[in-house]
């Protein structure tokens, strides 16, 4: 199996982001929230402050490092939730068909009709800002692609010989779905999950940028950029580094997703267009 350049570069970028998130307490230079010092406000990048300082005199490097924890927690946890919801609905809809299939299809159409950022924004408005709200808002609103793929796969796999054999052996429907069908559709589902994680990280950044996600002073890449807008004329470095962190993390996931698709899914049934 050839992995391809996409997979290596993408996987590498994502691995770096994960490593930064995990080792944040050791590689950060200062405390990202407490170490504000107005005497150091808006200093350009230097040896002491590699990425410069923000309007409160906090070290941007340390805040970017800690920001990785929030972005990746939200990305990974809510994407897992999305995958579980989407796959469960899609798998059962495709396998059972009938009214349940119609219902799931209708639900998916509704989800697709509401722009997912708007849906998440509405949920954040109701739950209030914070990490848990973010996980709920983003974990419930981006499952339609996983659902579509799981349903299509279940439809095409359920007439295969091994599924019929399992049925003849007396396997129950759930046992067939989760031990026979699911393992055979993991590839496309992983591809969608990887690409979806990038989308979730972008959505978290957008919500935090709007002031509805992680609230200051806690360092989220999105909320750092919303502060940066105020000082962009005098301190452009405040906006450059958090944005670059989002961009490289999401780019890593998108490249990884593309690479995995070339491996798992040569006919590209998961093309997201």
């Amino acid at each position, binding site marked *: 199996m050839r992995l391809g350049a996409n997979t290596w570069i993408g996987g590498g970028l994502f691995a770096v982001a994960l490593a930064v998130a995990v080792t944040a307490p050791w590689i950060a230079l200062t405390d990202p929230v407490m170490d504000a010092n107005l005497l150091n406000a808006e200093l350009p990048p230097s040896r002491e402050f590699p990425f410069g300082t923000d309007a409160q005199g906090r070290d941007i490097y340390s805040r970017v490092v800690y920001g990785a924890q929030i972005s990746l927690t939200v990305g990974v946890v809510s994407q897992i939730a999305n995958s579980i919801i989407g796959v469960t609905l899609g798998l059962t809809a495709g396998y059972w068909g009938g009214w349940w299939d119609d219902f799931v299809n*209708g639900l998916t159409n509704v989800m697709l*009709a509401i722009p997912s950022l708007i849906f998440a924004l509405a949920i954040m408005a109701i739950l209030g800002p914070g990490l848990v709200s973010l996980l709920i808002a983003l974990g419930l609103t981006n499952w339609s692609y996983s659902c579509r793929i799981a349903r299509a796969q279940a439809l095409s796999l359920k007439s295969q010989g091994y599924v019929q054999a399992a049925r003849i052996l007396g396997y129950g429907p759930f046992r067939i779905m989760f031990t026979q069908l699911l393992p055979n559709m993991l590839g496309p589902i992983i591809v969608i999950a990887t690409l979806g994680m990038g989308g979730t990280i972008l959505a978290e950044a957008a919500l935090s940028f*709007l002031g509805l996600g992680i609230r200051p002073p806690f360092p989220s890449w999105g909320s750092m950029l919303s502060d940066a807008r105020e000082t962009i*004329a005098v301190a452009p470095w405040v*906006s450059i580094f958090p944005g670059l962190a989002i961009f490289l993390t999401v780019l890593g996931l998108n490249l990884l997703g593309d690479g995995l698709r070339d491996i798992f899914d040569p006919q590209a049934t998961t093309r997201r267009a």
Partner: protein
Amino acid sequence: MLLVLVRRVGNMVPTLAAVIALIFVLFSVIPGSFMSGLGDDGRTMDPAVMERMRKEMGLDQPLLERFVKYAGATLVGDLGTSFRTREPVTKLIAGRLWPSLKLTMAAMLVAMAIGIPLGFVAALRPGSLVDTVSMVGAVSGLSLPKFWLGLLLMYFFALQLKWLPSFGYGDGGLTHLILPAIALGVSPLALLARTTRAAVLDVLNADFVRTARSKGMSERRVVTWHVMRNALVLVVTTVGLQFGSLMGQAVVVEKLFSWPGLGSLLVDSVFQRDIPAVQGCILVFVLFFLVINTLVDLAYVAIDPRIRYG
């Protein structure tokens, strides 16, 4: 064609009904609801004031009654009265609709004008420098946060070079529109370039293209006559889906550039806990998506004579 139109509009009805119900449920049934949402700033409300407000907003009536009232009013185009300005929500929205549409259309225009030709050229020379560069560019474009791109554009073109205004709507002219439109248009541009490339590559391998070539049709004619037309179906789908959801995605760009569109109205209303305005905005975004998709379905029939709904 008329039959198709009727059918498609008919298909919108259940989705729209479900969305109306969902919006109502979200903002009414969930415990704590909107009245106490965003409340981590430690402010508490006087219970007497709260009770009076609940009465005023009709929140003291039974849920089902409220839903019937809400759905009925929504169906006849009455989106309620804004808590903040005391104006009808439809009037608030009407004032924001044109700036929103203008921004969305401009962004889509940027995306189509660059994305489609780019994908086309890339597909005709797979593996070439043009192909590699545009596809690396496309995956990067998909990974860019819109508001960060907007910030960078603002910094370079407005603050450093001083070519364009940095934010605001101005007198509605073109200069204020350019930067937000680019910031919003880059991700659909990237997606369109990728889709067009994939669609064209698909068609280039089709049997009818090989037949056309083998009967001696010139390459130029093969490309313009067979490939373009057939690749168009997938491209139009992508344009439709992107366009439909772009107005909602514009929220961050509108906030960044202080653009007076529906996205700004939505975010401001969220912070002011103006529920009718929030519900109204969401409904308009959904309606826009559904209308655009219906138009796309109609476009299919025009492009591809094989597709018939009957």
